[in-house]
């Protein structure tokens, strides 16, 4: 296989769609309950953790783009082959594919858990799993344009949710945020580390990069997308900290959804029921993009036909998802992938950049 990948013209996306892709894949399941996990570490300074994690994300994204720019139109699968050689490269690609599938399961199962807790306690997991997977298959077979479109609409059609911020604002007490910097640096950094699963998703850049129309503008829109996510998280964190009292927050599993509990519209008494169901649209692009990334990996490394691969993955993921069906199993799985995601999404880009740089230098030395 070739390192570089020139996408067919009908699959090329305008670059500013990248903003929506990045933002929609980052915002998903994590946003429902990240506040509690961070609060358990950083207490009332959790918002500092969010800011720090956000800044770190920008740095990582910067290095991801730097790495990609070394090669022109390529994706991570191509880079791996180039850096590690054919066989090790393929093995590393497999790890990456598994990572994407793992994230898929994390998102899927957490969403099913939420919907079972809030709305349908009696509906079995397999049913949600099958229905969502079918949607994903339908979307992924449509190609990157359809997937990016799903991301675009999931953001555009969810903007109305932001208008509900006004309701909890009536009950906030900003004294909860004071005194600033009461927690020590370690716990704040630990809080930032806990942001991992909420922030990841930006590594999709590695895969969508060759599909961008104008690769020079990628850096701008990628950072805009990440910035939008960070601002959203920061607002939510501040709101949550000042709305819930510390003891309350420790007992709330999904603070973001609990914020909806006081929203009362003249025609809908309980918005959280609508919100939980509506979240399907918000997680849909995450699932589509991760599935697509995994399928791309197989296609690029092993040159298989996508359709069969999609169905194979779907069946595989279905069985994994029905196996992980209780709260404790989901938590174990989450923690496991939290660690993996931290290394793959946040640390690995630096290593890859250095390796790619060395490789590039070596080849140019050889040629001379």
């Amino acid at each position, binding site marked *: 296989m070739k390192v570089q990948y020139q996408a067919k013209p009908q699959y090329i996306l305008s670059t500013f769609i990248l903003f929506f892709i990045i933002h929609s894949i980052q915002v998903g399941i994590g946003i429902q309950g990240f506040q509690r996990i961070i609060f358990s570490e950083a207490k009332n300074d959790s918002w500092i953790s969010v800011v720090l994690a956000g800044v770190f994300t920008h740095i990582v994204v910067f290095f991801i783009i730097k790495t990609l720019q070394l090669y022109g139109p390529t994706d991570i699968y191509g880079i791996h082959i180039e850096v590690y050689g054919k066989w090790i490269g393929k093995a590393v690609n497999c790890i990456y594919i598994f990572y994407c599938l793992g994230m898929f399961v994390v998102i899927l199962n957490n969403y099913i858990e939420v919907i079972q807790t809030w709305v349908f306690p*009696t509906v079995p997991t397999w049913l949600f799993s099958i229905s969502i997977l*079918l949607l994903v298959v339908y979307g992924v077979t449509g190609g990157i344009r359809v997937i990016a479109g799903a991301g675009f609409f999931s953001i555009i059609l969810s903007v109305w949710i932001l208008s509900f911020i006004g309701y909890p604002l009536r009950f906030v007490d900003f*004294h909860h*945020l004071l005194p600033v*910097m009461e927690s020590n640096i370690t716990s704040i950094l630990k809080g930032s580390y806990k942001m991992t699963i909420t922030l990841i998703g930006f590594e999709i850049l590695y895969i969508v990069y060759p599909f961008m129309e104008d690769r020079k503008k990628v850096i701008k829109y990628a950072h805009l997308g990440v910035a939008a996510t960070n601002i959203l998280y920061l607002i939510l964190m501040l709101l949550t900290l000042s709305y819930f*009292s510390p003891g309350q927050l420790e*007992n709330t599993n999904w603070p973001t959804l609990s914020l909806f*509990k*006081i929203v009362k519209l003249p025609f809908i008494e309980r918005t959280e029921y609508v919100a939980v169901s509506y979240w399907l649209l918000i997680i849909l692009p995450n699932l589509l993009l991760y599935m697509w990334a995994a399928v791309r990996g197989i296609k690029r490394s092993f040159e298989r036909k996508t359709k069969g691969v999609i169905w194979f993955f779907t069946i595989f993921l279905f069985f994994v998802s029905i196996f992980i069906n209780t709260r404790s199993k989901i938590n174990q799985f989450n923690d496991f992938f939290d660690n993996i995601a931290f290394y793959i999404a946040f640390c690995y880009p630096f290593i890859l950049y250095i390796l790619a740089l060395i490789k590039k230098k070596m080849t140019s030395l050889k040629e001379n």
Partner: protein
Amino acid sequence: MRTKGWIWSCSFSFLLLCGCAQPKVLEEVGLVTTYGYDISKNGSILGTMVELTIDPASPKDVVILESEALSVRGIRNNANNKTSKRLASGQLRVIIYGEEILKQGRTGIAETLTSDPSISDMTYLAMADGTARDLLKLKTEHIPDIGNHLYKLIDQNTKGRVMPSATLQEVLHNLFSIGKEPILPILKKDGKGEVGFTGVALFKESKLVGKINSDQSFYLNLIIDKYKGGNKDVEIKSSKLKPRNQQLNKTVASLDAVNGSSKIKLINREKVEFDLDVKVDGRLLEVTSMIDLGNQENIKLVEKEITKSIKREIEKLIAYCQSKESDAMGFGEIYRSSVRHSNLTDKRWYKMFKEAKVNVNVDFSVKRTGLNE
């Protein structure tokens, strides 16, 4: 290839339809609109429920159910045995606690309830003077549905700033925060078969420790909340103003459109000293005294007197709270947020609060008098 996919998806859809969710059809669930919790003689929880039964054929709209259980959830399950419809609390509006159960500190019931996603955070909480059971069993001609009546009563008075707002969210918020205690409005059934707001219950942690009357609750509201658009009669004790009603020997100034805001500031960390600035303004509608309100001087005088009496009332209120070790105003919250690494715990704060000094500064101004000069 396409048709194949079509067949696949069709067969899948059929499969999916097999897994239909368990329905809760509106007319098949018994909607509990009000819960009442008391403590029974043997120490278990005695629950009283108001169930909405909408049946065009029956003259009554509500059914009152009672059951006893050791757990909160058990009450509903036990009551379920007595109803024709499955009880569900998704339309719960009001939770009433009996006085006894609160004295024992079993406010935790509210906490248990929030783990049920079907209960709204906007549910109102209140305390019954006496038992909740008696309050809910009230039946008079003009109150066909006690649940709805209580909800409207609390809703109206909370929005009108007569009652302190005590939704599930706010009570839990204060219950779980260090340095601020929850409050509950007290509802009382009087002999004539009417329910009314009579005061506010004060808590220490989750135990009922004191009560203030509805008059003082105005001042409590003034400190806790941004006060907007209420009305209040302020009693003035002054030698300069002669009361119209010689018999009572009291002068009352009636205020309308009262706006107030308060600010608490920690001024001394070691001695725990606070400054409480209260700013109030309003329309002066009536003064029960022989005084010409057209005169600017007199207005000044009234302003001064009202300021004095508000200050006096607030100081009295704070002193009472301190004696009960119930920090309903949230001084502890201010202390915690102003002192770095205070490591404040509830227990420590109760002691500190008792000794704390609060300097009350009231700034009252009359915006305008009524239509007449």
